[in-house]
């Protein structure tokens, strides 16, 4: 690899100050440090440094996202073929696997490209203006954003959402490490509030509107997500005929059965449907110590507790859904593993992480059930907890501060009497 490094060395002068391409120093610098960890040595303080850096950390998070990405791509093709009756519900795995992947990739790849293109473009711009090197934070955000999008969301909307999230949620606060809100969720929330009509429309399954118009859609196929279906039951009595039909979909053998929801064979955002694929990612994050197991486990506990309390109340059909079923649906698992654990926006104290996670899980299910206008309660809950995280940390730290102050007062009194 000496040869490659020699080439980089030879073109470097063009990018350095005074060179023809000095405006593009950030681009050169980030590409060079991408390929080679620089030969920088420690000058002050420690002489030896740990092997881990932010690039490695971010790479492992992306690796953890791969199962959800691959399954999501396959599932989008699967849902499309299912909606037009090309395959049967009874045999989801064997038929037309390559068609499913191709259809999915046809829609998912452009989303990924747009997300990275727009996001990294803005990052380069800001790094250039601020004259610092590129932080790796967006490598993960850029992959998270397409995974929380509905399959048929227009690319221009994604581009605007990414730009909004990167500029407003991150760069105005000072860039990577300084943001209060999770960047990917801000992109999702922006779309949700800026384009509510389009987002609640028929974009959750590829070309479902066109299929319907052409009369291709299978009978009874609504194209709604599990949470969308459940939201329609709120405010209706348990014995309502429509409610019974919806709840039937959640029984074993139904479209949204526990096993289908866990495996991810249901419509939904690209990366969020398969609890199994997400849990494989979670295992990698916990195994490498990168994702906080405290946040994940307390988030799960919070969700289960809330769903259990709803079970006890049982005021409507939505509340009667078993806790396990609640947490494997919608974006709960994805939010728990990849969003709530974002170290920058989560609580930063170890005790704070327990509280932050638990309340996040609790609110996710509460918002989802109480307010059918926001079927994706997880997004709202995590953004809310992002805002609350500094407050939680404040109280955790304050306990430590008071303890120290008490000790100092006592010591001062002892000195005075001595």
């Amino acid at each position, binding site marked *: *690899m000496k040869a490659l490094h020699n080439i980089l060395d030879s073109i470097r002068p063009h990018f350095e100050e005074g060179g023809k391409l000095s405006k593009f120093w950030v681009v050169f610098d980030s590409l060079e440090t991408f390929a080679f960890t620089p030969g920088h040595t420690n000058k002050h303080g*420690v*002489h030896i440094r740990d*092997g*881990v*850096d*932010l690039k490695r950390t971010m790479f492992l998070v992306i690796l953890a996202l791969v199962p959800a990405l691959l399954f999501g791509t396959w599932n989008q093709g699967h849902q499309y073929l299912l909606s037009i009756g090309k395959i049967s519900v009874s045999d989801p795995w064997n038929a037309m696997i390559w068609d499913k992947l191709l259809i999915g990739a046809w829609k998912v790849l452009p989303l990924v490209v747009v997300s990275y293109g727009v996001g990294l473009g803005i990052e380069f711009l800001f790094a250039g203006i601020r004259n610092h090197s590129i932080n790796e934070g967006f490598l993960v955000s850029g992959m998270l954003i397409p995974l929380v999008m509905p399959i048929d969301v227009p690319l221009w909307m994604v581009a605007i959402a990414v730009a909004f999230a990167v500029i407003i949620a991150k760069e105005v606060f000072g860039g990577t490490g300084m943001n209060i809100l999770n960047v990917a969720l801000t992109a999702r929330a922006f779309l949700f509030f800026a384009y509510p009509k389009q987002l609640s429309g028929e974009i959750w399954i590829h070309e479902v509107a066109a299929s319907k118009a052409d009369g291709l859609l299978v009978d009874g196929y609504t194209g709604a997500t599990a949470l969308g279906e459940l939201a329609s039951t709120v405010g209706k009595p348990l014995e309502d005929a429509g409610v019974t039909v919806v709840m039937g979909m959640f029984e074993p053998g139904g479209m949204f059965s526990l096993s289908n929801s866990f495996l991810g064979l249901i419509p939904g955002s690209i990366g969020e449907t398969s609890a199994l694929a997400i849990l494989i990612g979670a295992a990698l994050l916990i195994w490498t110590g990168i994702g906080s197991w405290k946040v994940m486990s307390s988030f799960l506990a919070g969700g289960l507790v809330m769903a259990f309390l709803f079970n006890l109340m049982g005021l409507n059909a939505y509340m009667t859904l078993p806790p396990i079923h609640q947490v494997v649906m919608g974006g709960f698992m994805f939010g728990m593993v990849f969003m709530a654990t974002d170290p920058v926006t989560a609580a930063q*104290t170890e005790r704070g992480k327990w509280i932050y996670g638990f309340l996040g899980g609790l609110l996710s299910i509460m918002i989802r059930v109480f307010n059918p206008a926001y079927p994706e309660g997880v997004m709202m809950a995590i953004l809310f907890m992002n805002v609350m995280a500094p407050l939680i940390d404040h109280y955790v730290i304050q306990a430590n501060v008071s303890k120290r102050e008490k000790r100092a007062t006592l010591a001062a009194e002892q000195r005075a009497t001595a």
Partner: protein
Amino acid sequence: MSGSVKSIVRGEKRKILAVLIEADQQGGAESFPVVDPKTADRTAVLGAMLNSGLFAFVQQRPFAIGADPAIQPRSIHISGFNSAPLAPDMSVVLDGRMADFQAGIHALGQLAGTHGVHIGVRSGDDSFDGIDGAVKTSFEGPHPTGNVGVQIHHAAPLSKGETLWTMHAEDVANLGTLLTQGSYQPIRVVGAGGSEHPSPQHMRTLAGSALSTLVAGHSDAENTRYISGDPLTGTDAGAAGYLGSLHHQVCLLPEGNHPKFLLTDGWLSPGLKMFSLSRSYPTWLMPKSKEFTMDTNSNGEERAFVVTGQYEPVFPFDIYPVQLIKSIMANDIDGMEKLGIYEVAPEDFALCEYACTSKIAVQKVVRDGLDMLKKELG
């Protein structure tokens, strides 16, 4: 040792780099009054320490600076063991000197205030059992348990308004010799090691020795880091450097001044040679006995704080390290005080700095914070 000043080496801005003294081969030395450490009063002990120059090795907290003899410390703390990488073994350092050490402890008893003299002992180590005149607290666990800062925090934490002193156990023994024999020698039993050291060993020398006498003839200034002190807190002294006043070891490590390609040794590599406290490289699955060659490469560039929960496991204090660092970065004096800056020294954060994914210069931040606070308080 006696001699005459031969030359003064100055660097940039006329900063004094070295004072070269030519020994006159007569081995003359100033003699000091012999006193009984048990009965000597405060003035006699302090006078002997100041006149001999030994007092220069006494540090104080808060601020982690050289101690002020005019202030009576509430307590004096000594660590009874080293836990830093490649540090000399304290049983070798104090071998045959326990009587001197005891005399030193008695003398320090005259200086310490209400809280007395404290020794931190590794649990299971009985070599300090015979020592009296000090409170002994036992500690177990890996580095940084041998750091005196950790021991203070758990034995008798420092509060705002208090001052304490810290001393190296070897200087306590040197103090004992000074008082009981009337002669002063700043003896250093140095741990000389590191992967580049031709023959790692303990060496007996004097404070301020030239490193060239401690490295068994090794000389490759370009590719080797000559560290006076341990690899986490020492200084880059260079091949022509000297042993720092507070240092008791010399480490020779390979310089990591070459780029690492992403797929072979960089961030996308399998990383089988990469040692990490995090579990991002598979090396954490290998047996603990596996040895790694540590070079001085920073293994990445400085970034903003992103990863959390990384400092706490290597920072055994009831203090929030990241929040304290951030308050220093924000020049928040009030915040620093509340978060416990009085108790800490930069060396207490050395492992945090080592472990940091974002490669933040944590020790420098803490040093700046302590300096700022001292300036504010006058």
